[in-house]
C-alpha cells in the first residue's frame, strides 16, 4: 500500500510526530512561531484519548507536563524563545527529578520578545545552559518537515530512555514552510517507552541505581508512592545534604548522557571526505550551506558540510577529526556566535575557523556562505 503523504508545515509535522511517538499530553501556551504545534494537538489528542491543556502561561505549561509525565504519560510542550526562558526553572526541576518530557522550541530572535515572526537560531546555547546548575542536556535540530517528524519521535525516545527533558529546536523557516512528508507506518520508526519498576511498591525507590544510571520510573496512580523534589535527594527521593550522595547523584545525571553519547549523537556529512573547507551548519541554515557546497564544488573549491542533527551533546570527537583534516571550518548561524564557540573549543586551533552570523530576521543565504568560505580558505 502506498504511504500516506501530505504537504505539511514543520510545526504540523512535529505534532504528527508526537502522536506517532505516543504522546498523550500537551500543556502549553500559544506563541508565534510555534502555535500550530498546539493547534494540531488540540484537535488530535482528544481523538486518541489524550489531553490538551492551554495553561495560564509558559511556566504553568511546563509544570503541567512534568506532572502529567509523572502519571506515566508521554508529554510535550511547544513554545518559542521567550517561553523557553520562562520555563527554565521547571526545566531544571525536570532535570534533577529526572522526569521525561519533550520541549519544542521554534526559534525566533531575541532576547526578550525580539522579533516574533522572524527566524532565529539564538537559543542553541540556552538549550544547554538555560537552567542553572550542572545538568545533562539533549537537543535535536531537524532541518526539514520529514526530519521534524522523525526527530520529534526520537526526542520522545531519548526522553523516555534517559528520564530527562529533551529539547527539539528548529527555526521559524522550517516551522512554517510546507513540504511533502511521507507518514511512516506504525512500527517503521522505533518507539521507546520508559522503564517501569519490576519490584513491589514497598521496595520501590525512584532513584535506585542498582538498575543502572537510569532508574525505572513508576507512574503515579499505579500503586507506587514516592517523593519528588527539586532538592538533591537520596535514592528514596527524599532530600539529603549528605556530601557523597549529592556528589554521586550529580555525577550520575551527567554520566547517563555522556556514556550514551555514541547512541544519542546523530550527524549528516556531505562531501566531507576530501573537503578543505567544512561548513558546520544546523537547522535551516544547513540547507543554505548544502546549496553553497554544490556551488563551490562547481567552482573547484573543495567544500563539504557537517550537519549535526543532535546538537547537544556536542559531536566533539567528529568535529575534532574534521578540524585536523580540513584547512578551515566555517560556521554560519542565525545568531552572533554561539555554536562557533563549541567548534573553536573542540578544534583547539587545528584549523582556521570562520564565523558568519545573521540576526536581522532574514535567513542566511547561500551567497553569504559562499563568500565567507572564499574569504576564509
Amino acid at each position: 500500500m502506498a504511504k500516506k503523504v501530505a504537504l505539511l508545515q514543520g510545526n504540523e509535522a512535529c505534532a504528527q510526530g508526537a502522536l506517532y511517538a505516543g504522546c498523550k499530553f500537551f500543556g502549553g501556551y500559544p506563541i508565534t512561531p510555534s502555535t500550530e504545534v498546539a493547534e494540531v494537538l488540540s484537535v488530535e489528542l482528544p481523538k486518541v484519548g489524550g489531553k490538551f491543556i492551554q495553561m495560564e502561561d509558559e511556566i504553568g505549561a511546563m509544570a503541567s507536563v512534568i506532572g502529567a509525565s509523572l502519571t506515566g504519560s508521554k508529554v510535550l510542550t511547544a513554545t518559542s524563545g521567550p517561553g523557553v526562558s520562562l520555563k527554565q526553572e521547571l526545566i531544571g526541576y525536570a532535570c534533577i527529578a529526572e522526569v521525561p518530557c519533550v520541549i519544542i522550541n521554534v526559534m525566533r530572535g531575541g532576547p526578550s520578545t525580539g522579533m516574533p515572526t522572524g527566524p532565529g537560531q539564538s537559543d542553541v546555547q540556552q538549550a544547554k545552559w538555560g537552567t542553572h546548575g550542572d545538568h545533562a542536556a539533549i537537543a535535536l535540530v531537524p532541518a526539514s518537515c520529514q526530519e521534524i517528524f522523525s526527530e520529534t519521535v526520537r526526542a520522545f525516545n531519548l526522553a523516555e530512555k534517559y528520564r530527562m527533558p529533551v529539547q527539539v529546536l528548529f527555526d521559524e523557516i522550517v516551522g512554517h514552510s510546507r513540504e511533502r512528508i511521507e507518514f511512516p507506518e506504525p512500527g517503521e520508526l522505533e518507539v521507546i517507552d520508559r522503564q517501569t519498576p519490576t519490584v513491589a511498591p514497598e521496595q520501590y525507590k525512584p532513584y535506585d541505581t542498582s538498575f543502572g544510571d537510569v532508574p525505572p520510573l513508576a507512574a503515579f496512580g499505579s500503586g507506587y508512592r514516592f517523593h519528588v523534589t527539586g532538592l538533591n535527594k537520596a535514592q528514596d527521593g527524599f532530600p539529603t545534604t549528605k556530601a557523597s550522595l549529592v556528589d554521586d547523584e550529580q555525577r550520575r545525571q551527567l554520566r547517563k548522557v555522556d556514556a550514551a553519547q555514541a547512541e544519542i549523537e546523530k550527524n549528516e556529512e556531505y562531501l566531507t571526505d576530501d573537503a578543505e573547507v567544512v561548513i558546520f551548519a544546523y537547522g535551516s541554515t544547513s540547507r543554505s550551506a548544502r546549496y553553497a557546497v554544490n556551488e563551490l564544488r562547481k567552482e573547484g573549491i573543495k567544500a563539504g558540510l557537517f550537519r549535526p542533527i543532535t546538537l547537544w551533546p556536542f559531536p566533539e570527537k567528529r568535529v575534532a577529526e574534521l578540524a585536523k583534516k580540513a584547512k578551515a571550518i566555517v560556521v554560519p548561524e542565525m545568531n552572533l556566535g554561539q555554536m562557533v564557540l563549541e567548534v573553536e573549543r573542540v578544534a583547539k586551533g587545528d584549523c582556521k575557523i570562520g564565523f558568519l552570523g545573521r540576526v536581522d530576521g532574514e535567513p542566511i543565504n547561500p551567497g553569504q556562505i559562499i563568500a565567507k568560505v572564499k574569504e576564509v580558505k
Partner: protein
Amino acid sequence: MAERFEIRFSGAGGQGLITAGIILAEAASIIEGKHAVQSQSYGPEARGGASKSEVIISDGPIDYPKATIVDACLAMTQESADKYANGIKEGGVLLLDSDFVKKEPQGDFKVYKFPITRTAKDDLGREIVANVVALGAMIALTGAVSREAGEKAVLARVPEAFLELNKKAYALGYEKVKELMK
C-alpha cells in the same frame, strides 16, 4: 522542468495568495510527485499590506527553502509589485493585475497582464476566486505543473459547494493567459 523552479505570488493580505501557493505546492509534490517547498512572508506587513507566498519546485531534493532568483512572479497590487516584483530571473515572467498595477516594474523579464480581480468578478460573479484565476494563469504561464494536476489540487482544497466555481475560475485564468501567449 529546470532543476529548481521558483514562483512568487504577491498581493494584498487576505487575497488568498498563500492558499494559491499551497495549492501549487500540493499539485507539484502530492499529485506530480516532484519536490516542492512553500513558504510565505509572515509578519505584521502581511495583515492587509503586501504579502507573498513562494513555491520552489524541483525534480530533486530542495536544499535552500527560500527563493534565490524567481522564474515567475505574480503581483496583484501596486504595493506588492513595488515590493516583491524584484529578483526576477533574466528571461523570467511577471504577471500583473492590470487594474491595480499601473506602474509596471522594469526589468529583463516578460510582462503579461490582465484584470485578474475584475475577471473573477465580472465573469464568475465572485471576486473571492481571483486567487484561483491567478493560479490558473500562473500555471499556464510557467508549465510548472500540468493543467490537470493544478485543477486536481484546486478541487481537493475547496468545499463541495464551490467545486464548480473554482473549476471555472481555474480554467478561466489558464485560458486567458494562453490567449495572451499566442
